[in-house]
C-alpha cells in the first residue's frame, strides 16, 4: 500500500516538473500578445495557467497509467527484443483480435452512417494505406530509401486516365494494367540505381520523382500539361451506373478490399524466402550476397513490387477525384508516404496501416482548429514518434516463423 502511495507521489512530482517545463517553453507562444497597431503588449497569464494544468493532468495520467488498471495504450517495456507491435497489441492476442473485429465491422458499416464527403475522405485514407504498404516493401523491408515514390503513383493515375481517354479502358481493367505499368517503371528505375545505397539512392529517386512530374507538366500533347486530364470516370459495375453517392461508396469498398489485399500480400512477402532476402540485404548487403542472394534480382523485385501498389493506388486516386494533374504528385506525396512508413515502423504491416489512417484523417478532422491545425498535427506526429513501440524493423514475430513450420 505504502509502495503505491510512494509511486503516486512520485508521479505527481514528475507531472509537476513536466507542467513547469512545458509552461516555460510555451510562455513566449501563449502569454505575450503584441498589438502592432496599438503598439501595446498584453499579457495573457490565464493561458499559461490552462496550459500548465492541462500538461499536469496529461503527465499525471501518463505516469500513473500503471497504477489505475491497464490502459490499452501501453508501451511494451524493455529492449527491442519485445515482440509487441504498435501499441503493444500484438502481444495481447485477445485484445488484438477484438480490436481487429471491431475495426472490420466499423470499416464495413461506415458508409451507411456517413456523408458522401466522409466516405470520400476515408477513401483517400485507404489509398494512403495502400501507398504506405507498397512503400513499406521498398523502404521498410528492402531498405532502399525511395524519395520519388509519388512518380509511380502518378504513373498509375495517368495510366488509367490516358488508357481511358484513348482506348476506353474501364476502371476494373485499369487496376491491374496500371499496377503492372508502374511495376515496369520500377524496374526501369531500378537498373540504373542498383549500385546506389542510402543517401545516394535517396537523391536519385528524388530526381526521378521530379522528372516524372516535370514530364507530365510539360509534355502537353501526351498528358495535357499542367491543366491535367478531366472527366476520368468513377468506379462503376457492369450494368450499374451509380450516381455520385453510389460511385463514392463503391470506390470506398474497392479501396478497402485492395488495402486488405495489400496488407495480406505484404505480410506474406515478409515471411517468405524473398522477404527474408530483402531484410538480409537491408541488414548487411555484403553478408547477404555471400549467402547466395542475388542482389540485382532481389532489389529489382522489391522496387517492382512496391511500384505495383503505387500504380494501383494511382487508379483509385484518379477514380476518386475524376481529374489528374501533375500538381497531385509532388514531392509532398512521396514525403507523406515515407512518413507513413517511418511512423508505422518500417516492416510492420499493422503499424503502417494505422499510421496512414492517422496521417490522412488527423489533418482532415483537425479542421475546426483553423490556424492551429498544422501546429497540433505536427505535435501529434512528434508524440506518435516518441511513444510508438520500437520493434526492430522487419523482424517477423515468433508466430510467423512458427507458422512456417506448421
Amino acid at each position, binding site marked *: 500500500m505504502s509502495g503505491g502511495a510512494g509511486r503516486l507521489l512520485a508521479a505527481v512530482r514528475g507531472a509537476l516538473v513536466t507542467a513547469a517545463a512545458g509552461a516555460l517553453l510555451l510562455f513566449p507562444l501563449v502569454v505575450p500578445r503584441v498589438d502592432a497597431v496599438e503598439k501595446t503588449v498584453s499579457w495573457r497569464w490565464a493561458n499559461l495557467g490552462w496550459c500548465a494544468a492541462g500538461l499536469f493532468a496529461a503527465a499525471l495520467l501518463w505516469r500513473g497509467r500503471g497504477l489505475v488498471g491497464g490502459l490499452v495504450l501501453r508501451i511494451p517495456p524493455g*529492449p*527491442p*527484443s519485445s515482440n509487441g507491435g504498435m501499441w503493444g497489441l500484438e502481444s495481447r492476442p485477445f485484445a488484438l483480435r477484438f480490436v481487429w473485429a471491431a475495426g472490420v465491422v466499423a470499416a464495413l458499416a461506415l458508409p451507411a452512417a456517413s456523408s458522401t464527403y466522409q466516405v470520400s475522405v476515408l477513401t483517400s485514407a485507404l489509398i494512403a494505406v495502400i501507398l504506405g504498404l507498397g512503400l513499406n516493401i521498398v523502404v521498410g523491408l528492402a531498405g532502399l530509401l525511395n524519395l520519388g515514390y509519388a512518380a509511380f503513383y502518378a504513373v498509375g493515375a495517368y495510366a488509367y486516365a490516358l488508357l481511358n481517354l484513348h482506348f476506353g479502358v474501364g476502371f476494373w481493367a485499369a487496376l491491374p494494367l496500371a499496377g503492372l505499368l508502374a511495376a515496369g517503371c520500377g524496374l526501369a528505375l531500378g537498373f540504373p540505381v542498383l549500385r546506389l545505397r542510402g543517401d545516394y539512392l535517396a537523391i536519385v529517386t528524388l530526381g526521378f520523382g521530379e522528372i516524372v512530374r516535370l514530364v507530365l507538366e510539360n509534355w502537353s500533347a501526351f498528358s495535357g500539361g499542367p491543366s491535367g486530364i478531366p472527366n476520368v470516370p468513377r468506379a462503376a459495375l457492369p450494368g450499374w451506373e451509380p450516381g455520385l453517392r453510389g460511385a463514392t461508396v463503391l470506390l470506398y469498398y474497392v479501396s478497402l478490399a485492395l488495402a486488405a489485399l495489400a496488407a495480406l*500480400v505484404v505480410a*506474406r*512477402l515478409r515471411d*517468405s*524466402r*524473398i*522477404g*527474408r*532476402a530483402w*531484410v*538480409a540485404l537491408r*541488414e*548487411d548487403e*555484403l*553478408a*547477404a*550476397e*555471400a*549467402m*547466395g*542472394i*542475388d*542482389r540485382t534480382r532481389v532489389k529489382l*523485385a522489391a522496387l517492382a*513490387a512496391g511500384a505495383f501498389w503505387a500504380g494501383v493506388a494511382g487508379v483509385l486516386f484518379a477514380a476518386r477525384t475524376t481529374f489528374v494533374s501533375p500538381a497531385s504528385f509532388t514531392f509532398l506525396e512521396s514525403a507523406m508516404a515515407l512518413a507513413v512508413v517511418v511512423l508505422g515502423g518500417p516492416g510492420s504491416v499493422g503499424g503502417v496501416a494505422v499510421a496512414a489512417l492517422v496521417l490522412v484523417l488527423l489533418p482532415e478532422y483537425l479542421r475546426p482548429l483553423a490556424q492551429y491545425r498544422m501546429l497540433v498535427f505536427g505535435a501529434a506526429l512528434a508524440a506518435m514518434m516518441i511513444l510508438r513501440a520500437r520493434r*526492430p*524493423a*522487419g*523482424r*517477423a514475430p*515468433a508466430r510467423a*516463423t512458427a507458422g*512456417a*513450420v506448421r
Partner: protein
Amino acid sequence: MSAPPVAAPTAPPVLLEAAALSVTFGGVRALEGVDLRVYAGEIAALIGPNGAGKTTLFNCLTGLCAPTAGDVRLHPPGGDGVRLRGLSPARVAALGIARTFQNIRLFPAMSVLENVMVGRHARTRAGILGAVLRGPATRAEERGIAAAARALLAKVGLAALANEPAASLPYGLQRRLEIARALATGPHLLLLDEPAAGMNPRETAELDELIRRLRDEDGVTILLIEHDMRLVMGLAERIVVLDSGRRIADGTPAQVRADPEVVRAYLGGGP
C-alpha cells in the same frame, strides 16, 4: 622431413585451386602471385602476420574482391571445374563456397532462426508470386527451409535460442550462428575467418570440436584463418603461411613450425 609440401601419394582430389593470384589496391600489393590448393575433405589453415593478405585471399575466393591477376577454380565433387574469377559472390555461394567474417556480419534485426533460413536462399526457388499465393509447393519449401535451419542450429548448439534476435547473442554464440548460416548454403568448402577471435579457452575448445564434426560427419572441407596457434596446430592438417602478400610456406604443422622463413615472418628480425 623433406617431403614435398603437397600431393602425398594418396592425395585426395583438389577441391579449390588458386593460381598466381595477385591483388593491388592502388599502389599496395595485397597479394602477389599466391598459389593455393585446398584438398577435398581436409582441414587447412591460413596463417600469417597482420596485413599478410589472408582476408584479401578469402575475398578473392568468394567473389567479394576481383583479383588483378591469376585464376581461381573450384572442382566440385562429381562435377566439372568452374572458373570463379568474375563471378558474383552470390554465384560463388551457389557453387558451394561459404564463409564467415572476421568482424561478425550477421543480420542483427532478424531472429537466430531467420539468419540461418536466409542461408538457404540459393538452394530454394520461391519467388514473389509463390510467396503471395503460398501454394503447396511454396509451403513445403518453407517447411524444408525451417527444418534445415533448425537442424543446423541444433548442430551448433543454438536450438534453444532460435527465436532470439541475432544481435542479442553473446559474442561466442554469434560466431557459431555465423557458421550455421554459412552451412545452410550447403557448401563443399567452408571458409572461416578467425572463428576463435575473442573466444575464451573453453569456447575455443568447443569450436575445435565443432569444426572436426563438420568435416567428419558432413564432409565439409574447411579452410580457416586463425591467430590462435594452439588451435591451428592442433586442428589443421595442413598450414599455408602468407607474409606481405606472398606464400612463404605450405606444409604440415610440424613442417611449418620448423620453417625458418615462418619464424622470421612472425618474430621479425633482419634479413
